């Protein structure tokens, strides 16, 4: 091939491949846009569209917290601080502090995996911007509360039962070691 014909061939190739590429780009004028304008033009809040397993900011349901400290031990970066003392007179476990530093938290989910009742769990909330590091520490205990004690049978207290069932629903999402799959799910 002579240099001139190669030169012409290159130009032809360039023009035709650019045309092919531009055809793909132009076809996007006809397609539905994929982008959305966050946050003010969303039809629903993003938080409501996220899956149940989404690992957002941690939340604690103190009503069903047993004070077992499993989450504190499971946390690899020690962002959870719990103070639980035994009341000498009533022999009950008293929770006087339950703090989570969400600035330190890396949202790994190891704490909620260890929780026996699903008390500590991730929410779908992710917008955590704030003005100071101090305000990023979530303090869940306002006044000392008595730790939850699991009952032999099903939970009867109408105030606690829905919270517990939500917590257990969260736990069901986790794989059970060596066991069967969570109820209500067909093997694929």
């Amino acid at each position, binding site marked *: 091939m002579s240099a001139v014909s190669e030169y012409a061939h290159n130009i032809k190739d360039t023009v035709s491949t650019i045309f092919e*590429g531009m*055809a793909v780009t132009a076809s996007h004028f006809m397609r539905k846009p994929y982008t959305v304008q966050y946050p003010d033009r969303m039809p629903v809040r993003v938080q409501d569209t996220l899956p149940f397993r989404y690992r957002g900011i941690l939340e604690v349901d103190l009503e069903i917290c047993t004070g077992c400290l499993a989450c504190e031990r499971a946390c*690899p970066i020690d962002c959870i601080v719990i103070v639980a003392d035994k009341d000498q007179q009533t022999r009950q476990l008293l929770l006087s502090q339950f703090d989570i530093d969400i600035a330190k938290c*890396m949202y*790994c989910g190891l704490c909620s995996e260890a929780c026996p009742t699903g008390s500590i769990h991730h929410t779908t909330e992710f917008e955590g911007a704030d003005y100071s590091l101090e305000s990023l520490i979530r303090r869940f205990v306002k006044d000392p509360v008595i730790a939850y004690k699991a009952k032999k049978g099903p939970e009867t207290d109408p105030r606690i039962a829905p919270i517990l069932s939500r917590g257990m629903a969260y736990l069901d999402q986790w*794989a059970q070691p*060596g066991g069967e799959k969570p109820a209500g799910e067909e093997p694929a």
Partner: protein
Amino acid sequence: MSTLRTEEMTLNMGPQHPSTHGVLRFVVRADGEVMREAIPDVGYLHRSIEKIAEKVGYRGFMPYTDRVDYVCAMFTNQGWGMVCEKLAGIEVPKRGEYCRVIAAEFNRIASHLLSVGAMAMDIGAMTPFAHVIREREMINDLIEELCGARLTFNYMRIGGVAWDLPPGWREKALKYLDHFDPILEEYNALISWNKIYIERLANVGVITPADAINYNLVGPNLRACGIKWDIRKDIPYSVYPEFEFEVPVGNGQWGKLGDSMDRYVVRIREMAESSKILRQALEKIPPGAVLAKVVRNFKPPAGECQIRVESGRGDMGWYLVSDGTGYPWRVHVRTGSFAAMGIIQKLSAGLMIADLVTLIASLDVIAPEIDR
């Protein structure tokens, strides 16, 4: 009569350069537009992850492995899980292994998508990057539904995976794959076969097969030199022997064997192969448990072991020494990006400065994986 004095120019590229794929610095000695050499200066992203393993224990280290290589975190998860299981003699349930392969192959597609898109962007084509990010977002949505996170997955555990596939996820994944295969063709029409793009990549940064072996290149970089070496095929792990897939190798179709275009095309072809593996895995996934019974206070016996995983950036080695306590005595990670950094100094001699960006992008280095 005096001659005009000329001198060599020393340029600094990075650490905060958009084309270095992270915090990475190059010292470039250039003669005009042509480089004498580019010396990579690594270490800006060193977070002593291997040391952290000795402090947080076996279970607590799993989320940290996500940070070794955040573009394909499933493989680092899998590597850490596999090395602990091998040392402690734990057998992962079949369904757990399938879940791992499904998650990991989706992650490989996402990683290669980012790689080929970023390569186009480094060279100056902005549109393809938007296309690949759109596809990657859809994979991220799938993985988010599976494990609750989009980037730092923490999906795998010692002995299996933390979550089973959610109801209806399998159908969604298959639907996505049906959408993905034509998209790959569309992407090729958009940029891959573009004449200008090929001219920028072909014959740039040619690695001979001998050099690739001598410099310890792994993964797509090695395969682009025509060497068929894939850990999934050659040292099979997990359930990969049950799947049929090809190992794409470079053939020098656009220039010399082992040039940047070969490395680019190998990644494009690997995405199609991953899609094939995913279809088979989603078809064949057996019922059952996904997590083996592992004692809560995990303590492997004293000893050492090493495993190899084929990550998005190639052969990733995990080495673990245990002294029988609840904390590892020593952990070492060997990553593909670090090996790829070694050859840049040799390849850069005689290249144009503008081609250094092509070279870095085609080797697909990820700065946190170099330094760990």
